[in-house]
């Protein structure tokens, strides 16, 4: 009976395993603009805007003459995107004015987002905004009503190594700011689908409303290399 007790004591004095400590949080010093830029125009984030100009005298739809349908495509599996989200949350909750104790507690709350395990998955998030409320509702309903299976022949991630990687999982949007999540495997038959030698990685969503039938967004690989590591 002594053995389990000893083991327990030993384990209690061992350092905590895994990323239970908040990592280097240099992003906590980012100004809001930097976080926004990371989420909207960075190597891991794209905006694709489809426009339509309404002709004729008078107002258009809810007073809008130029309809903007914007898809926000982000590589959520890339740590910088999650850090940007974390920084936005920090600013939102007044992190910079918190006491050290409160900060530690808040950091713990952010941890699941930051340390989301994406070691096996590439996660692409897609959110949508339009200044036409009807269009926004239609696209929202489209994303809400899909499943991984129904999207199987409509959504692809393509790399030079693996054209048209199939969707592994799909999560409809729960919050507007994050959007729908499309999940692809990082490996195919044991080999990575993306390496530093690749030029780009492309996300495609066919037959989606608001995008003139298809959404296609390409990310260059080179800017996604941080230090020696390809981050995506």
């Amino acid at each position: 009976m002594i053995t389990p007790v000893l083991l327990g004591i030993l384990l209690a004095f061992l350092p905590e395993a895994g990323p239970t400590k908040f990592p280097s949080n240099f992003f906590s010093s980012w100004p809001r603009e930097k976080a926004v830029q990371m989420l909207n125009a960075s190597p891991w984030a794209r905006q694709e805007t489809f426009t339509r100009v309404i002709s004729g005298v008078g107002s258009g739809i809810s007073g809008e003459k130029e309809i903007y349908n914007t898809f926000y495509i982000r590589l959520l599996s890339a740590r910088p995107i999650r850090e940007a989200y974390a920084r936005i949350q920090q600013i939102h909750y007044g992190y910079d004015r918190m006491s050290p104790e409160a900060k530690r507690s808040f950091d713990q709350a952010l941890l699941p987002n930051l340390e989301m395990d994406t070691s096996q998955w590439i996660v692409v998030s897609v959110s949508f905004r339009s200044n036409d409320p009807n269009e926004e509702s239609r696209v929202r309903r489209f994303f809400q009503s899909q499943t991984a299976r129904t999207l199987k022949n409509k959504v692809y991630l393509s790399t030079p190594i693996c054209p048209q990687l199939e969707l592994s999982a799909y999560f409809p949007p729960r919050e507007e700011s994050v959007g729908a999540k499309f999940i692809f495997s990082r490996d195919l038959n044991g080999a990575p689908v993306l390496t530093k030698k690749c030029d780009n990685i492309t996300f495609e969503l066919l037959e989606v409303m608001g995008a003139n039938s298809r959404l296609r967004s390409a990310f260059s690989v080179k800017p996604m290399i941080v230090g020696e590591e390809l981050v995506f």
Partner: protein
Amino acid sequence: MTKPWLLALIVLLPSLTQGAGTIQVEQEEPAPPAAVTAANQELPSELEESLPPDLKKIDSFGMEIKGPWSSQGGPRDESIALVVNPFSVRKRGKIYGSIYEYHRNDSFDARNFFDPVGEPLPEFKRNQFGLSMGAFINGKLKVFGSYDGLRIIKGSTMLSLVPTPQMKQGDFSVLAGKNLIDPATGIPFPENLIPQSRIHPVSAKLLPLFPDPNREDPARNYVSNQPIVNNNNTISARVDYEFSSRTKFFGNYSIGDSSRFLASYLPAFGTTTDDRRQTVSLDLTHSFSPNKVLNLSAGFNRDSTIQLSQQAFQKGLLDSLGIEGVSVLDPIDEGYPIVELIGYASLKFGRGFSGGGFGGGSSGGSPNISVQNNYSFKTDYTYVRGKHTLALGGNLSFRQLNGNRSWGTRRGQFNFSGQFSGDAFADFLLGIPYAAVRGIGSDRADLRQRLWQLSIKDEWKINRNLTVSMALAYDYAPFLHSIHDNVSLFYPLLFEPPRHGEIVVTGSHRARELGLKLGRGQAAYTDKNDWQPSLGLAYSPFGNNRLVLRASYRIIHSTMNYRQAQNSIGRNYPFFYLERAESPTRPDLDLSRPFASAAPAAQTIQAMDPYLRNPYIQQRELSLQYEFLRSWSLELTYEGRKTTRLFRTMPANVPLPAGFGNPIQERRPNPAYGRFDILASSSSYTSDELNAQLKRRLTGAFSIQAAFVWNKAISDGWGWGLANPSNPRNTAAERSMWGFQPPKQFTLNYILDLPVGRGKLLSTAWAGKFSQLFEGWRISGITTIMDGWPFHPEVFGDPNNDGVWGDRPNRLGSGILPSSGRSVDKWFETSHFAMPDFAGPNPQWFGNSGRNILLTPAERSWDISVIKRTRVSSDGNLLEFRVQFFNAFNHANFQQPGSYIGAPTFGVISNADNAREIEVAIKYSF
């Protein structure tokens, strides 16, 4: 294998669990500090079983933090949603929306090319305004509502010729060089004076409806500036609700009221129209499993329209005129009869030329009542298996048309041409029309239609390069039918109806005896052959979808709409029918008793061909789409379309042409009846269209979309409203360019954000606090350049005397002038067209000029908006101010030149589209 005791120990240590390859912290709910969570972490059980835990955590990634954070740490920054999607804040629980106003008035507008110089522009005020609001109540419920309003007061300028006060007294001495003939004696009235005693009592009662002239122009001596008023209010509400991750609901309701006053040439003939449109739609999506999704939707819309004359409810008005044989059923029908005067303003509702037909429809104008109800139920079931996506669909819809009344002819229509006295108004004073039409019976129609559709579709992703799509649908689409036993037709319904033919009521014993197996209220047999196959493929040779080739072929059936049917169901003896009395050569008709004073009036027949079929369209398409650079794409598309069995109204019981003065009625194949109008599926339409598009999506500062469409469309149809082929016995001669489509069209639309601001090409850092003044400027616009629309020269009236208008002249040359030779006074070479010799010893009854052989002037329009957007709060509230220029360069877009050969306006352009208009608008988004 993990030992039980070790597991026990792990449980003792807080928040440590074995993850997928790593040890992860798992938060205990709800004890703070809480994890970042989403509103709903339930997953479909199938997904829970099949997904590894790390994927579930990915799903829980969100922006909301549970915990004490909202109450500490200083003020909350409200921009959390804004910064992620920088349009405006969409935070849970917070209301977002916008409020706007668009304003135009005549002080901003340029003068139309044909507006008289020196005179003020007609009054014009237009206000369009609205408010919209929405909110995410919680993670499952989203609501949205809006109100849009429109107020228009538009002074019209309608010029016409009205009789002078002297003429209304019978004094036509002003008509220099023209002798008024006394039809009773055949000799001229002395000094062109009609004795007071000869003024017909009915005419005397109608005379006050003609206003006195108010202009000096002898040809257009009266201008009506009655304003057109249009008030609209629309309210809509929408709700999205997520019952669970498997079941989602959407509902929408909108109601729109519209109230319009439409002015006419003469003050007493304006009409008021009240419309109400209501729409409800419900939509439910349920996922049985990730590869089985069911969508159910239901919709209802109700449109009601009431168009009334200004004299509606003035009980006894029509009777007081003393015209025998016309009456109204209800005070709502009250009003004056239609009095058509060739050369003068007519007593009727209308803003344009009246073709002199039977005068129903718009010239009757009132009452025009309809209530339409449409119910639709739709289901789609999607099943994904392997590389196949199968979709099964079913539609059921009911259409109801209740209490429809579209003809004002119960009050009668009387035509005066001046052929007896030499002046149409003199004929009117004398009370001798050359033709009179009346409706007898109740014109109320209550129609129904029930449509079913079943469809199956398979989208087969054969490999990464090739996708094939196959579908088959079947429509069961009976034609509209009456709920009353009031449908009759002439049998046999032939172009030359035999004299032994008779009118039979469908569904009656007699109809069955004759072999007509139509049910009661049914006007045509159901077309049960509406199969709609389709086949398409998408091929991406390099598998990356940058270059995609698409090809498809499909057959589409179209179903009848109520407007096509309403004049052909329940419009025959003994229910409701038109009678026409005419005496074109002798002054036999007396305005007091027009239908009893001459040869018996003839019944007309309005019917569907009982063997009517639904039109079907064969559509073939080939397109090539190529994306290049980052945001550019080029698309070339060919689309061919062939429509067979297109509806058109065929005139029948038409006599052969004859010289002027030969009475029409006795020459008809069946002289016991007047003209027949038969709705038949006998015309066709083909078009070949090439469409080239170049697009640049909005990245950085600008987006652009340029499209060029080159179309050639040919048809021998003229629609279902008018039935005026030149020669009804030779409909092949009607085959021509389709009249409702310009052959070439170029459109360009663009959005340009001026590169001014922080981090942009032109920095505004120097402006400090005033930098916002220089930022947020945008220019957008649409440019349209297109050919004119096909049209053709015509002959006014019915000179070949076959009872059908639409005769055409002879063509001696192309008629086309070089662009340098065109002017508003002569747009085409009028000398290339000549009147056929209708009266010679060897008359030519039909001109050889084709239909739609010329084009109206081309159109150019530049609409440009200048927009300034200013962010007025940190949480994204925007103030937008814009100035819009419509037809910015004030290009005169001329309308169709006069097409009646022999008329002073032949080849002359008299109207142009709107000149430059400027609108100012303000919008606030919150």
